């Protein structure tokens, strides 16, 4: 028989269940708070910025006249900077992640690398800006160029890529590796034919998340002295004549979307605030698309592999 009568038990249960209800209500409100803020933010942007969005807005250079100003140089700059970032951060980050998960034996050196990566992830982005200022701009004399900016953001997202790679690799059960080794595969065969292919989705998700973060980064680029007023485009990478490609654009001065927006926000004139809102809207849409892509990849590829 139970330790108490059914009536006593029912009273007890009723009393305890009241807390369930109270907390449900609190939780619902908290959640709504977050969601409402998001909606308000987007709405505020849209109300102010939507009227400014037009074809011209994308194809015009910034201007002293708010109504004529556009974001051409900003989005081109962003695109080029991101290219540099991806091309440098991904190979380095993935290789580092693979080393740490698959090769590293336990010793002080790998411990050091390990702790170091964790801490890098927590370093404020502006500190990377200072690093870039000291190292790229002055030490390596890259100047305030697309290359310097791209590398800065690459360093910034490197920990993200490394961590994502490691997580993705770690989710592959050891038995899969042992299965490959047991069939006579070498270490590199195991890594290149199994570990990397199976963790592609995870790595890709991490890379996209990193990029969506990089695309909105403002502070480190301000630190290296990105210009806020650029009325020209960098040299194009692809040429009509030999050697067809050119790397001059790498050293070109640039601006990017968030800086352009910051610039407009900082102006006292209200009309520029509308420009800022419009640029913000474009930025939000860009990051939304990238986040959606990451979610899609995670969902779509994870579905196919269940360990």
């Amino acid at each position, binding site marked *: 028989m139970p330790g108490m009568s059914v009536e006593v038990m029912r009273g007890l249960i009723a009393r*305890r269940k009241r807390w369930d209800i109270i907390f449900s209500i609190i939780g619902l409100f908290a*959640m709504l708070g977050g969601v409402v803020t998001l909606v308000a933010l987007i709405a505020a942007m849209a109300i*102010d910025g939507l009227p400014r969005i037009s074809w011209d807005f994308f194809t015009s250079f910034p201007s002293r006249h708010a109504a004529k100003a556009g974001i051409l140089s900003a989005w081109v700059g962003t695109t080029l900077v991101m290219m540099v970032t991806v091309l440098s951060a991904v*190979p380095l980050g993935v290789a580092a992640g693979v080393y740490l998960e698959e090769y590293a034996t336990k010793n002080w050196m790998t411990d*050091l690398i390990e702790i170091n990566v964790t801490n890098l992830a927590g*370093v404020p982005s502006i500190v990377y800006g200072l690093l870039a200022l000291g190292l790229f701009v002055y030490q390596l004399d890259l100047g305030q160029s697309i290359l310097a900016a791209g590398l800065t953001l690459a360093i910034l997202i490197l920990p993200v890529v490394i961590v994502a790679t490691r997580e993705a690799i770690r989710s592959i059960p050891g038995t899969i590796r042992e299965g490959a080794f047991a069939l006579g595969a070498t270490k590199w065969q195991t890594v290149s034919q199994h570990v990397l292919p199976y963790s592609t989705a995870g790595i890709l998700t991490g890379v996209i998340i990193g990029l969506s973060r990089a695309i909105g980064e403002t502070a480190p680029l301000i630190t290296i002295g990105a210009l806020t007023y650029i009325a020209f485009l960098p040299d194009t990478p692809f040429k009509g004549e030999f050697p067809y490609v050119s790397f001059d654009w790498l050293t070109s001065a640039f601006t990017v979307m*968030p800086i352009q927006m910051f610039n407009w926000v900082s102006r006292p004139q209200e009309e520029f605030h509308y420009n800022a809102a419009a640029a913000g809207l474009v930025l939000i849409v860009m990051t939304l698309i990238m986040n959606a892509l990451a979610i899609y990849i995670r969902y779509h590829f994870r579905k196919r592999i269940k360990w």
Partner: protein
Amino acid sequence: MTEHLKSSRFAHRRMRHVRERIIESLLFLAAFSSVAITVAIVVILVRESLGFFEHVSIIDFLTDTQWTPLFDDAHYGIMPLVAGTLVTAGVALAVAIPLGTIIAIYLSEFAPHRVREVVKPVLELLDGIPTVVYGYFALLFVTPLLQYFFPELPGFNMLSAGLVMGVMIIPYVSSISEDAMRAVPMHIREGSYAMGATRFQTALRVVTPAAFSGIAAAYILGISRAIGETMIVAVAAGMQPNLTWNPMEPAATITAYIVQVSLGDLPHGSLGYQTIFVAGLTLLLMTLVFNIAGHWLRRRFREVY
């Protein structure tokens, strides 16, 4: 059956071996680059800071209550910047930690599956939005709103920057906490329900303690994010170093100061130029303290299911 292997076995083996070694070395270099980055950060910050401390005593730096390096009457007391940083971060955390935790518990233990699947990504979008956009929002939407309630509130103030930053950090706290709670295996939860516990009891007495290390990590991450956040404060809190603990006032944070200086055109090697590295070093040390604390917490309370 291994004839064909036997003949060329030796040559094969050496080639295989050499290739494997080369690949391993390359991968090691990649991993080591992260250490190089850290070293570079430290070297650069420390080198410029040393230059700074040749001119300014550490005592002054820590005790002076004014930070006016660019004025003629230059004062180099970091306190106003630290105070600004702590106040904005404090406001942000006062919003993010309670709300984030409640949302995490609600989503992981109370919300129907559908709600969770929708709300969680939506909240994560909060984190994906560029910070400069938040700055805009704080300055041009939240501050006017607050001024409606507190008419005397200045146009630049730490309260509105902190509040918006808090909202931005919510998903950090809630998402990671919720992940940690969901990582608590269902069978532990079922164990509690099977004992006759209610949802609230299960959430509070079993799931939350079990996920403690993850939740703590989420808090720490939120804190370092709040301290290092730049653009919101730069846009909305003003750029005036101001030693005050009152969030209703404008004040510069460390990060805002760095931005402010960078926007101008300071010659390389000047004392003004060095101040931003000193500020950076201070910021780095502050976040490092929290990161180490987080590391320790996670290690101390790691759960094995």
